[in-house]
């Protein structure tokens, strides 16, 4: 075993399972149970990264998810994931990690020059410079700033891992599995309540996993954890989720969790997702998130080897790793002493315990004395030495007059503790307001805002006995609140791990030149005490301003380590109580959360449902080209023999006008309106009159919103006195249905009429062209197709190819046309039958592009193309569609508003280019002048424009101001390459008399 700092026994690791890994290309070994951080420390590696701004050498500071320094990139499957915390990365065989934000290497980083130039880079320096000359910002300054910023390198290859999603419900969600969380889960589970217990770590137990001598029910802490987990996992009503971070707490007890499923495995089964999103709705939540230790803000408190005391203890007791051979402990609270004792008991030299308190407890002093540990009281660290690893520290004696030097101490690691900060992040996310606890000197959760309770250290309750008790109580109460059930669970009795005292906030006093030294408040963002003071000096008096100006608390730990220290420094500078400076709210996510977790299965074809029509497979086989229309795949055009779109569409158009064409219109919305008041209902919804429409007849319907603007249209057929078949646009189907429901349910509940969506009940084959009747006739039974019996705008039921059908004689091409509605499951059969049949008549299948051209040749509008939500029926020349004698309809009053009846509104006209070969661009603007100066108001714009192969020239529709009074006038369409001359015409280009539909 080549891990010089590994202990010989103890810890939650398996020394027999050696693992090999790489850090910056160097091959190292660790053991199973290690994190990357513990393995590096076992190898004596403290320097693991460079800081954000000054590129200072940085080491591992913590043992948890709040780690600000030890951010690494992990190479896996040919790509890297940046910014992972070495303290959270579980070691596996073959793991490859690299350090970040350094060039060319971690040991020699040219960026470190920034440290020397740091006097030029105080907080907010970039707001004060880089302004001159103007052009330099874009070209010089900003690129340099950007290249310098950022931590790791972004991934560059598409991520092929999968991610899962699961919605879950429970009575009690317990977040955190330390003593409080475990006790809460045990108590809640005992009642039979549905319990989910999650913990961000790989193993349940939290702080108990690094306990040395505490016992619970006479067992060691870790044995009690194992027994507890065994009992929980035996229960059907309990779900245990290790490696699962509760990262978001939303309204009404909706909590999101991220489960890391495979990232800790060397070679996971590819069927497993990399991570999974749990979306949990909990009746009650117990937050048992614990507390984290606070760094002390003293000069040069950031050298590798300087670490939080409890982290040092965790590496020793949980991972069997000594953080050094000669360790200095600096503290303002009791718990750090235990770290020193544990290390000493494992044979590590304790250089000294420097406690800034005058009088630590006698009990601690006597234990230290018994171990022969040097103790300095009333003593702070005023500086440290060593470049890539701490090699010594300056001690200072705190006196009433200030700080006086108390000599130097040599060490190879420095453990520090400024006391404990309850983790209130999730409580804060739940919209709870934290309150200041003067005794503890920290913020603790106030009253719960949701069905939530914080238990244990996260609520400021310390000491093993008290924490367990708080957990049991919270679990019991939560279960009772959720289910009404109670159960008596025997409570475990704890010995040891008593609550400690002490703690300090803010910058420590020192005897150094304040303007020269750096005492870091926010490690990752390189924010020093000086920066916070500068912000205050410059008028930033709100903590939010200080935070934004200095960036303190905005790093990847979201200020969990730094907020209280920053707040205290600001408070001192301002001379205001800390609580008056304010506390920034914690936002989700609790720890950085992979985008893939959020997106999970929404990718590729599952990004959004792909809705296909019954002809889809046939179209694929016949090389049709699709376009996306909402979620639908619609056939755009059918190229044959290598045609391009232009050629295919030209052929399709000509064929339809000459013989016949087949078009899949299945995507059009269909609504069945049924009931005695059906006609009355349509009368109120649509602009047109419906009451006198005969059974078996169809009418074009126009739908407005209450503002008076066109929102949809479609043909409506009357199947019976009390039954209508309504069609809508493809894109408008859902909205029209919802709008109708709204009026029916909330405005006219007295009407006896109901609506049912039949969009997908029927497949619709449109057969259009002079030979349309011949094409369908062989398949129709029960309907007389003769022009007299079944004229244009008719509807009838019968059978088609032997299946029931609703046949409509309608046309969106200006040709003789039929739309065959058949029950959807028969759609494929009918489509294929018709596709074969039209071949006999030299017909063609056609797509949406041809449909658009054919209707434009007839001047028919498409809602959403000619109209854009600002267009009235009058504007598009459809005043005829408005029932003259109607009392009311949706949009009637809106239509009478001043601007909607004003002169000079845009009106739909046709445009013919002077050069028939030139096809205008849709969206092009129409002007009076050929060369309008910039800033000219347009007269209008081109809404539709095509080459009409039937006419052998281009055609266009446009909305033009006062257009109907400009017939025959010349206007211009200015393009980058010059203006195009156009003549204003009416909107019908083919068959102006409209006789062909009656064929």
């Amino acid at each position, binding site marked *: 075993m080549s891990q010089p700092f590994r202990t010989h026994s103890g810890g939650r690791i398996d020394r027999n399972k050696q693992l090999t890994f790489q850090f910056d290309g160097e091959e190292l070994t660790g053991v199973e149970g290690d994190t990357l951080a513990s393995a590096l420390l076992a190898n004596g590696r403290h320097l693991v990264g460079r800081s954000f701004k000054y590129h200072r050498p940085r080491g591992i500071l913590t043992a948890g998810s709040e780690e600000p320094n030890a951010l690494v990139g992990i190479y896996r499957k040919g790509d890297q994931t940046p910014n992972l915390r070495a303290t959270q990365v579980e070691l596996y065989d073959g793991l490859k990690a690299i350090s970040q934000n350094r060039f060319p290497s971690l040991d020699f980083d040219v960026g470190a020059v920034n440290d020397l130039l740091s006097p030029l880079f105080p907080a907010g320096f970039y707001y004060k410079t880089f302004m001159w000359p103007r052009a330099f910002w874009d070209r010089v300054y900003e690129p340099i700033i950007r290249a310098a910023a950022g931590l790791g390198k972004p991934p560059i290859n598409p991520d092929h891992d999968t991610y899962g999603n699961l919605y879950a419900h429970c009575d009690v969600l317990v977040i955190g599995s330390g003593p409080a969380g475990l006790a809460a889960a045990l108590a809640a589970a005992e009642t039979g309540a549905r319990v989910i217990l999650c913990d961000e770590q790989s193993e349940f137990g939290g702080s108990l996993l690094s306990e040395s001598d505490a016992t619970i029910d006479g067992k060691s802490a870790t044995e009690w954890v194992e027994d507890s987990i065994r009992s929980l996992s035996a229960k059907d009503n309990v779900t245990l989720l290790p490696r699962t971070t509760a990262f978001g707490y*939303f309204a009404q007890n909706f909590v999101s969790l991220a489960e890391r499923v495979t990232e800790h495995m060397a070679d996971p089964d590819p069927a497993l997702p990399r991570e999974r999103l749990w979306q949990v709705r909990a009746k009650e939540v117990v937050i048992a998130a614990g507390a984290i230790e606070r760094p002390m803000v003293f000069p040069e408190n950031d050298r590798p080897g300087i670490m939080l005391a409890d982290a040092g203890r965790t590496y020793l007791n949980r991972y069997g790793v000594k953080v050094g051979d000669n360790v200095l402990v600096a503290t303002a609270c009791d718990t750090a002493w235990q770290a020193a004792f544990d290390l000493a008991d494992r044979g590590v030299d304790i250089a000294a315990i420097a406690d800034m308190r005058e009088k630590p407890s006698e009990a601690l002093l006597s234990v230290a004395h018994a171990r022969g540990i040097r103790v300095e009281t009333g003593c702070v660290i005023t500086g440290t030495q060593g470049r890539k690893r701490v090699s010594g520290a300056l001690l200072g004696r705190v006196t009433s007059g200030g700080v006086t030097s108390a000599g130097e101490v040599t060490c190879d690691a420095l453990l520090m503790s400024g006391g404990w900060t309850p983790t209130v992040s999730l409580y804060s996310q739940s919209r709870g307001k934290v309150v200041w606890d003067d005794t503890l000197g920290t913020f603790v959760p106030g009253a719960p805002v949701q069905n939530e309770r914080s238990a244990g250290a996260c609520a400021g309750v310390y000491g093993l006995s008290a924490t367990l008790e708080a957990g049991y109580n919270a679990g019991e109460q939560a279960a009772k609140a959720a289910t009404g059930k109670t159960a008596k669970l025997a409570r475990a009795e704890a010995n040891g791990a008593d609550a400690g005292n002490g703690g300090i906030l803010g910058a420590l006093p020192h005897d150094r030149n304040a303007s020269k030294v750096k005492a870091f408040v926010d490690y990752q963002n390189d924010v020093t005490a000086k920066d916070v003071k500068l912000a205050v000096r410059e008028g930033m008096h709100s903590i939010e301003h200080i935070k934004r100006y200095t960036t303190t608390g905005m790093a990847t730990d979201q200020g969990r380590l730094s907020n209280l220290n920053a707040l205290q420094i600001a408070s001192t500078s301002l001379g205001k109580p800390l609580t008056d400076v304010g506390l920034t709210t914690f936002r989700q996510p609790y720890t950085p959360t992979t985008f893939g977790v959020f997106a999970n299965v929404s990718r590729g074809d599952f990004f959004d449902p792909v809705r296909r029509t019954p002809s889809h497979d046939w179209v694929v086989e016949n090389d049709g080209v699709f376009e996306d229309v909402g979620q639908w795949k619609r056939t755009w055009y059918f190229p044959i023999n290598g045609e391009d779109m232009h050629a295919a569409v030209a052929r399709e158009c000509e064929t339809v006008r000459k013989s016949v064409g087949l078009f899949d219109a299945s995507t059009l919305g269909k609504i069945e309106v049924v009931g005695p008041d059906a006609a009355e209902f349509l009368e109120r919804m649509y602009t047109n009159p419906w009451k006198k429409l005969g059974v078996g007849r169809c009418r074009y319907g126009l739908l407005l919103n209450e503002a008076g603007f066109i929102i949809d249209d479609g043909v409506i057929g009357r199947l019976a006195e009390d039954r209508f078949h309504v069609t809508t646009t493809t894109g408008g189907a859902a909205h029209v249905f919802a709008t109708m429901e709204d009026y029916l349910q909330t405005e006219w*509940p007295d009407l006896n009429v109901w609506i049912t969506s039949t969009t997908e009940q029927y497949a619709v084959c449109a057969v259009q062209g002079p030979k349309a009747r011949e094409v369908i006739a062989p398949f129709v039974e029960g309907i007389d197709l003769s022009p007299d019996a079944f004229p244009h705008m008719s509807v009838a039921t019968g059978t088609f190819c032997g299946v029931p059908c609703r046949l409509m004689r309608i046309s969106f091409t200006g040709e003789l046309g039929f739309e065959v509605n058949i029950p959807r499951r028969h759609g494929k059969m009918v489509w294929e039958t018709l596709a074969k049949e039209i071949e006999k008549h030299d017909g063609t299948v056609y797509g949406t592009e041809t449909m658009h051209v054919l209707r434009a040749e007839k001047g028919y509008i498409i809602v959403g193309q000619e109209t854009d939500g600002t267009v009235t029926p009058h504007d598009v020349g459809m005043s005829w569609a408005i029932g003259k004698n109607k009392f*009311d309809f949706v949009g009637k009053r809106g239509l009478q508003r001043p601007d909607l009846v004003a002169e000079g509104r845009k009106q739909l006209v046709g445009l013919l280019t002077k050069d028939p070969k030139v096809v205008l661009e849709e969206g092009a603007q129409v002007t009076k002048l050929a060369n309008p100066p910039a800033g000219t108001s347009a007269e209008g714009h081109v809404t539709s424009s095509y080459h009409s192969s039937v006419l052998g020239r281009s055609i266009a529709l446009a909305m033009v101001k006062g257009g109907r009074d400009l017939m025959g006038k010349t206007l211009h369409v200015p393009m980058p390459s010059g203006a195009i001359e156009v003549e204003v015409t009416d909107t019908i280009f083919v068959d102006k008399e409209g006789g062909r539909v009656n064929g």
Partner: protein
Amino acid sequence: MLLIYCPYCEVERPELEFRCGGEAHIARPTDPSTQSDEQWADFLYMRTNTKGIYAERWRHIHGCGRFFNALRETVGDKFLKVYKTGEPKPDLDAIAKEASR
């Protein structure tokens, strides 16, 4: 994501099943032609947009399909009352008093 009680299905369901229909109790005038332009603009566009207790419409679009009304406190997003379409608007002051208790 909100959790909403549907008074027709008589269960609480996640917001994903619902569409918010905006402010409640804005009845469409029975004879719009008698409305002045100001009145019509008021009907179309003006909203109370209350910071506090707000009466709004919801539709259980991916459930029973019914519209209903709800009182929700718009700062904490807590639902205070849910009632069926057609039922009168509750006394907001009384509800507010009850909620603050």
